[in-house]
């Protein structure tokens, strides 16, 4: 009997191109890969809002925007109010890519988890503390807190909110770093043995920090676009003046993020992955071109909005659409790099053993989507426009 020590049947030879790697994979695996990319992109939408929003909130808190008697800052208030929900959505959306990555890259993902051990597992308490810190920032004005005298006074203090906002931003950054370090370790099976013996270095290596900066900067255009959309929808009672005031800071944020993430993306995606440069690959070039194009279109929309000091419907829609395309392109590049790096290794993409339950999933997908649509509609119908967000 052959021992199933490693899954090698589906591994493509090293130094392949992406089309070759994909062609060598079983159809089921390609479907799961597509689902991994799609659900990761969905997760990234909420993650980007959370990350950008956290930075925005931290800066607003440090500027005293959440203190008693602070000048009206509708955007800061809206973002603060929506952050806990956004992080819940990010966590919930993150479950699906976490599931599909276990199906496609079981060995490399599990091994990286185990090797990083406490540094990886620490993301859970970090995330829990970060969410509670977000609620501390949000607590002002909450009836439940107002009723509790001393606690309410403490939570309403500007310095407490600043500390909580900075702490939450740092912890969310840590969570991002943990995921990046895990991902990078999963791409390097040749280092696993040494990493096991020597343990993890005190700090993640430079590539992890570069990627963190790339993802963090890349989050900003998405955050800016979604925040602009919220203001357009009248979130927090936003009026034209609020929208005009927010247009230039948001544009600056989005443009900084777009340019920064594109520069760092060029460095990251042009690196060698399994003997192939992703940007030399046809699929890689297409994805990178889409990323650059989306960022350029989004950038143009933001420049227009900044010049006119107006968050117009068309430009906001363009910025949101461009962000979504950029996220999808990033997700494709990320999986492309992984496929190339692991091709020909025992940790390559694999075919799942079973497929049962798909029909039931599809049925409940329709039911759940319908129920969620009903909830959104019911809430929207019950509320006046200015209170919807």
């Amino acid at each position: 009997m052959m021992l199933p020590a490693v899954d090698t049947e589906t591994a493509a030879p090293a130094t392949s191109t992406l089309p070759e790697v994909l062609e060598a994979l079983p159809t089921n695996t390609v479907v799961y890969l597509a689902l991994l990319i799609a659900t990761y992109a969905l997760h990234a939408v909420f993650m980007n809002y959370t990350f950008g929003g956290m930075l925005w909130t931290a800066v607003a808190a440090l500027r005293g925007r959440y203190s008693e008697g602070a000048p009206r800052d509708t955007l800061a208030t809206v973002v603060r109010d929506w952050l806990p929900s956004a992080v819940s959505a990010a966590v919930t959306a993150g479950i699906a890519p976490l599931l599909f990555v276990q199906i496609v890259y079981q060995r490399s993902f599990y091994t990286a988890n185990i090797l990083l051990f406490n540094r990886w597992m620490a993301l859970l308490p970090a995330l829990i503390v970060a969410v509670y810190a977000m609620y501390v920032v949000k607590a002002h004005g909450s009836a439940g807190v107002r009723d509790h005298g001393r606690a309410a006074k403490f939570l309403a203090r500007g310095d407490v909110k600043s500390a909580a906002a900075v702490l939450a931003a740092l912890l969310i950054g840590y969570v991002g770093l943990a995921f990046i370090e895990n991902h990078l370790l999963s791409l390097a099976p040749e280092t696993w043995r040494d990493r096991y013996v020597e343990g993890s270095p005190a700090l993640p290596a430079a590539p992890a920090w570069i990627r963190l900066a790339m993802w963090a900067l890349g989050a900003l255009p998405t955050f800016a676009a979604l925040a602009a959309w919220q203001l357009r929808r009248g979130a927090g009672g936003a009026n034209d003046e609020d929208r005009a005031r927010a247009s230039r800071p948001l544009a600056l944020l989005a443009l900084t993020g777009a340019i920064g993430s594109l520069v760092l993306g060029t460095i990251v995606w042009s690196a060698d992955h399994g003997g192939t440069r992703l940007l030399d690959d046809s699929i890689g070039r297409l994805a990178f071109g889409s990323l650059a194009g989306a960022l350029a279109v989004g950038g143009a929309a933001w420049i227009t909005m900044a010049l006119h000091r107006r968050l117009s419907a068309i430009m906001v829609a363009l910025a949101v659409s461009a962000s979504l395309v950029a996220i999808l392109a990033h997700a494709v590049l990320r999986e492309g790099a992984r496929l190339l790096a692991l091709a020909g290794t025992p940790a390559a993409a694999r075919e799942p053993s079973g497929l049962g339950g798909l029909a039931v999933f599809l049925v409940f997908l329709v039911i759940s989507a319908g129920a969620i649509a009903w909830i959104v509609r019911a809430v929207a119908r019950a509320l006046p426009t200015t209170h919807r967000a």
Partner: protein
Amino acid sequence: MPLDPASAAPLLPTAYPVQDYDPLMKGMVIGGIGILHVFLASFAIGGGFLLWWFEWLGQTGREPLARRFIDSVFRALIFVSFIVGALTGVGMWLTAIQISSPTIGLMVDVFHWVWATEWLFFWLEVVAGYAFFRYGDRLDGRTRLRLLTIYSIAGFGSLFWINGILSWQLTPGEWVETGSVWAGFFNPTFWPSLLFRTVVCFTLAALGGTIVLNLVGGFTREERERLLHRISPFFLPMLAMPFLGAWYLAAMPEDSRDWILGGSMVINMFFNIAVGASALIGGYGVIALWRQRNFMNGATATLLAALAVGATGAGEFIREGVRKPYTVRETLFSTAVTPAQVATLRETGILATDPYPLRDPEAYPTDQLREGRLVYRNLCSICHTVHGAMALNALMGEWSIEQKRLMVAKLQWTGGYMPPFAGSAGELESLVQYIAWEHAKRPKEWRESRDPEVIEEIERMLEEATTLPSPAAQKAAAGEESR
């Protein structure tokens, strides 16, 4: 295409690096997170129904205080269950990967679409929950009730789906033959487990609601008493617990049931703790609160909730314990080796497949001890430590060397909860020497023991033990003798 369990052999445990938690046992790590998660998730699921009940009482004019109570409890649900509850759920996955990658890998392989379906219910729960939390006070009664209906169904749905996967581990049923996902999902303990857990959810919701009621301000003593009586029907399902428990026990494999009912002192003790704690909670809830309309203050409610944590913990311990020697019955031993792989590993040895060296090879005076440590790491450390919890030193240290060889070679005969030894005779001798060396407090010198006669004797014992688990091993051996 359904999964063929015979070909579903996951990677060998040696494909993954192993972390050492000594003095903590790995089960304690996953158990700790698991108990917290189950407790909070159960509170959230039952809480959905409790809120629905109060919304209905409020809207039908039966309880004018209902609205205020709902606001208080819902905030607690959001602050506790949506954050710690949800994230410990993710934590369960990540911890399972740390503890036994092949096991969680097999579960994901078989049930990923079930998990994906559960994910849809998470979405529903989060969207309905936040919609109610943010906008509930501005919605009309019908929409509020519908939102809570969706929230409750979604919460219960997540229990429904995960219950099928967890109960499959103990009783995979016809899945073992057919490989059908649904045969595995609707396995023999699915329904008793689901109903039992549902009762637990209702109970924890009642206790959680009582604690919140006592914590929040704005209610007079009379109002609290009145609301407590409204909560008390949620204790009534506990009356069904003895019957559901009996059904659950009856649906279990015979050996698992025997351990609970006295075959294993530890499991039996936990069973008694769970029964005793549940009886106290149920008795108080049903008699004092529902029947006699007594008042329960925050301290008493917290004490009962602490008892409920004890009962939940004991229940989870029993669930994990009675699966032994498997993590997925008849499919994957607790060592993460499949029954089919044991025979091969007896020939090739487990270490031939292990790419990860020791981190501290210099700490061991001989190669044989280094090998022994590696065998311990791959085959024993999933359930044991050397000097901490379930320590091999304490369990086997005092045995003679011959006794150690016999007990490990016939591991599944030593105790039915132990899997058959999945290594070669030479590796078994290395393990035995390693345990003896640890018991001798790690002396600087240790004689290698590779006597061919000893190895031959071990091979004979291994053959006698067979590669089957208990009691099939004993039956097979008896059959061999009679021939």
